[in-house]
Each structure stands twice: as structure tokens, then as C-alpha cells.
């Protein structure tokens, strides 16, 4: 009972430590490393919170594909952050105030793992029974994802498709249009 809570608290504290290290890091490759470690610990956290499918997705997508994407982008980018002496007090104050308000509100949230909290009352028992009797898939997450909430998943695929097309359109090597724009600029400058 209490050991589950202890495991959760420990893991989440490790994630906080990694986050603080992220705040202090300067070189970009160190940041990417820390993000990878952060995703790893987050997925273990998902397992201890009983979200097995989410942990699977986070492990393969969050820790794997994200890291490789960051690295592939970093190959074309400058490797070090410039030491800027700008004033960071204003963003810090905003974040602290917002965090304080959120923590103040957290006293009204239900305690972790209470079976009587409102989220567990409404529609979930029907889904669990329906998944056993009507659909017949043992994994409830799959049956909700593909059957009860099928249109959401359809919309998700549309979003991913749009993002893929947008990435291709942005990264397309369109030197012709660039040269056209530059020549137009020159025409304007020369009068």
C-alpha cells in the first residue's frame, strides 16, 4: 500500500533532479542526453502507475524516436549555446507564481489512488464490462481506442499525416523560389 506510493514518490523525485540538471546545462548534446534519460524514467513511472500501453509507447516513441530526431537535427545546427547575459528574472518570477498557484490548487485534488474519486465513477465501469462482454478484446485500452473512441484515433492519424506533409514542405530544397525572392529584393533595392 504505502510502498507503491514510496516508489512513485522516489521516481518522480528522480525526474525532478533531471529537470533541475536540464535548467543548468549549457551544451546542447548534454541537454539531449538528459532528455533521453528523462523519458526513460518517465516510462518506468508509467509502469508503476499501471499504464502499460503508455509506457510501451513512451519507451519506443519518446525515448527512441525523439532522441534520434533531436540528434539528426543537431547534426546541422551549432553545437553550443551562446552565453547570453540577458535578464532571466522576469520569466522565473512568472514560473514561480504560476507554480505556487497550481500547488495551492492541488489541495482540492483527490489523493492519489483513491477509488472513490470522481474520475472513476462515470463511464469507465461500462467500458470495462463492455470490453469483456461486447467486444471481446482482453486489453481494455485497445478496445476503447479502436472502438469506443475510434473517431479520436482517426483524427490523430490525420494530425500525424498533416505534420509529416508540413515537415516535407518545410525541408524541401526550394532554391529556385529562394533565388527568385532574392532577385526581387535586389530589384527593389536598386530601384
Amino acid at each position, binding site marked *: 500500500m504505502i510502498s507503491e506510493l514510496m516508489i512513485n514518490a522516489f521516481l518522480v523525485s528522480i525526474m525532478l533532479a533531471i529537470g533541475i540538471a536540464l535548467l543548468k546545462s549549457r551544451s546542447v548534446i548534454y541537454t539531449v542526453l538528459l532528455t533521453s534519460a528523462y523519458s526513460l524514467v518517465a516510462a518506468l513511472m508509467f509502469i508503476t502507475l499501471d499504464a502499460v500501453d503508455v509506457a510501451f509507447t513512451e519507451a519506443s516513441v519518446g525515448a527512441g524516436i525523439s532522441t534520434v530526431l533531436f540528434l539528426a537535427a543537431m547534426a546541422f545546427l551549432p553545437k553550443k549555446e551562446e552565453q547570453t547575459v540577458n535578464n532571466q528574472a522576469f520569466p522565473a518570477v512568472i514560473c514561480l507564481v504560476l507554480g505556487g498557484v497550481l*500547488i495551492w490548487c492541488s489541495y482540492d485534488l483527490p489523493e492519489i489512488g483513491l477509488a472513490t474519486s470522481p474520475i472513476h465513477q462515470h463511464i469507465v465501469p461500462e467500458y470495462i464490462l463492455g470490453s469483456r462482454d461486447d467486444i471481446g478484446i482482453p486489453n481494455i485500452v485497445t478496445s476503447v481506442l479502436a472502438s469506443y473512441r475510434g473517431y479520436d484515433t482517426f483524427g490523430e492519424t490525420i494530425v500525424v499525416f498533416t505534420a509529416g506533409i508540413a515537415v516535407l514542405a518545410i525541408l524541401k530544397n526550394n532554391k529556385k523560389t529562394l533565388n527568385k525572392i532574392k532577385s526581387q529584393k535586389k530589384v527593389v533595392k536598386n530601384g
Partner: protein
Amino acid sequence: MISSTLGVWNYWIVFFLMMIGLFLVIGRKNLLKKIVGLTIFQTSVFLLYITFGKIQGGTPPILNNINETVYSNPLPHVLILTAIVVGVATTALGLSLVLRINSEYGSIEEEDISAQDLIDYHDLIETSKKISVKFKK
């Protein structure tokens, strides 16, 4: 005492992580760091949702043949499963935008980019002044 503190400890740390992500987004000038901050923010929101779905003494929501099993809430898991995939699509889009900005401006520091924009803007104003002077003549 310990139990009640542990009962809200997850929420506190999740809010701290959110604020770290927000600070990385609005406080840093490097565009890559901003995207890392977005990732942190996303993951903390996922953690908040999954924390709501946990039931003490429950098992993962995969049916077994024992009758009296308590399953954790599967609905947040479904939502977050969608959100993770969309989040990676967003990250890819942001990274491609950063790459494009780097090839156009030669830098990913916010101050450099805005300075170059300012110079271009002044150039544009001066040339338009010249053109208008020509038209008046």
C-alpha cells in the same frame, strides 16, 4: 501524516516539472532548448493524467479471468496514447522549422534572428523612401 504528504507529492513534483518546462520555453534564447522545454512540459502533463487514473491496489487494465480484480482507469491511458504520438509529430515539425531558420539566418539564437530582422526592416524602409522620392520627381 506521511501518507497524506505522499498522496499529493506526485502533484507537486509534476507542477514543478511543468514550471521547469515553461521556464525553458520562455526564458531561454536558444530555439533547440525551447523545443526540449516543450517536451518536458508535455511529459509532465502526461504524468498528471496518468496519476489521476491510478487506483490503489489495482492492476493494469488488461482483463484476466479472476472476477474480483480492480482495474485502473483506462480512459486517461487512451487519451495520453494519442497525445504522445501527436507530441512527437509536433516535435518533428518544430525541429524542421528550426533547421529552416538556421539555413536562412545562420543562427538559432533568438537575439541574432531579431537583430537581422531589424536590419532588413530598416533597409526596406529606406528603399521604399527612395522609391517614393523617385515617384514624386
